[in-house]
C-alpha cells in the first residue's frame, strides 16, 4: 500500500513510518509530498496531514491515532505513543522525560539525512532501539 505524508519528517512521522512497516503493512511504500500540496494522491493513504483520518485527533499525535484506529494493543507501543504525544503535542501533564530528547534526536536526524527516505530508515533504528529497551525494562 502507498502511504503519503508531508516532507521533512520528525518525531511523530518517523514513529508512524516505523509502526506502519513493523505492525501494519510490511510492504508499505512511502511518498513524501510538499507541505500543503493538493490534491493528495488518490491511491495513497495520507498520514499526519491535518484533516486526514490518520492524523492528530483530540490532542493526540498521529502515532496514537494509528494505534487506536488499527486497534493495536501493545503496552510498549502505548508508552511510545505517550512519549510522541509529549514531544509533538502541547501537553499539560508530562510523565515521560525522554520525550523531549526523542524530539531533539529526530529533528537532528532529519538534518543530517539526505532526504526523508534516509531519515525514515534511520528513525526506524531509533524506534527499534527504544522499543527493545522499554521492553527489557518492563520484563523485569
Amino acid at each position, binding site marked *: 500500500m502507498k502511504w503519503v505524508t508531508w516532507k521533512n519528517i520528525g518525531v511523530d512521522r518517523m514513529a508512524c513510518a516505523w509502526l506502519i512497516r513493523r505492525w501494519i503493512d510490511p510492504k508499505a511504500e512511502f511518498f513524501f509530498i510538499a507541505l500543503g500540496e493538493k490534491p493528495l494522491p488518490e491511491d495513497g493513504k495520507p498520514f499526519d496531514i*491535518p484533516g486526514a483520518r490518520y*492524523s492528530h*485527533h*483530540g490532542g493526540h499525535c498521529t502515532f496514537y491515532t494509528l494505534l487506536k484506529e488499527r486497534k493495536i494493543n501493545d503496552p510498549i507501543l502505548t508508552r511510545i505513543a505517550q512519549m510522541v504525544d509529549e514531544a*509533538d*503535542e*502541547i501537553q*499539560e501533564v508530562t510523565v515521560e522525560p525522554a520525550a523531549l530528547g526523542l524530539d531533539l534526536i529526530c*529533528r537532528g536526524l532529519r538534518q543530517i539525512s539526505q532526504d526523508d527516505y534516509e531519515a525514515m530508515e534511520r528513525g526506524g533504528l531509533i524506534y527499534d532501539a527504544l522499543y527493545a529497551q522499554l521492553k527489557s525494562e518492563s520484563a523485569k
Partner: protein
Amino acid sequence: MTTWLLLHYKLPNKPSALRVYVWRKLKRLGTILLHDAVWVLPDQPRTAEQLQWLVAEIQEMGGEAYSWRASTILDQDDESITQQFNEQVDAVYSDLLKRLEKPKADLQEISRGYQQAASQDFFHSKLGTLVREKLTSKRGERS
C-alpha cells in the same frame, strides 16, 4: 527582522470547556495575546508545528481558525513584541531565582519550573542562563 506566527480563532459558544482547553494550550505554548485580539508566537520549527496542529484541533471542534506568518512593518515593533516574550519568561525566572536564595530551596521543584520556562524562552533570556548556572552549581552542594 523576526517572522511571527499569528493566530485568530473562533470557537462554538458551547461547551465553554473548549475555550478553556484552547486557552490553556496557548498559554502552555508560551503564546502572547496582543490587545485581546491576536495570538502571537515567534516563527520557529517547533512553534509552527504546534500551531498547525492546534488550528486543526480547533477546526475539529467545529471552530474556525486562521494562522499567518507575518512580519512587522517597523523594526521597533519587533523589539517591543520580543520584549513582551522576554518579560513573560523573566517573571518566572525571577521567581525561581528568589526561591533559589532561600535556605533549603527545593531544587527538584525549581528545576522543573526552570524546564517549563525554558521551553517558552524563545529569545534566550540572560536570566534563564543565570537560573541554570545557579541550579547546576547548587547541585552537589552540602548544606
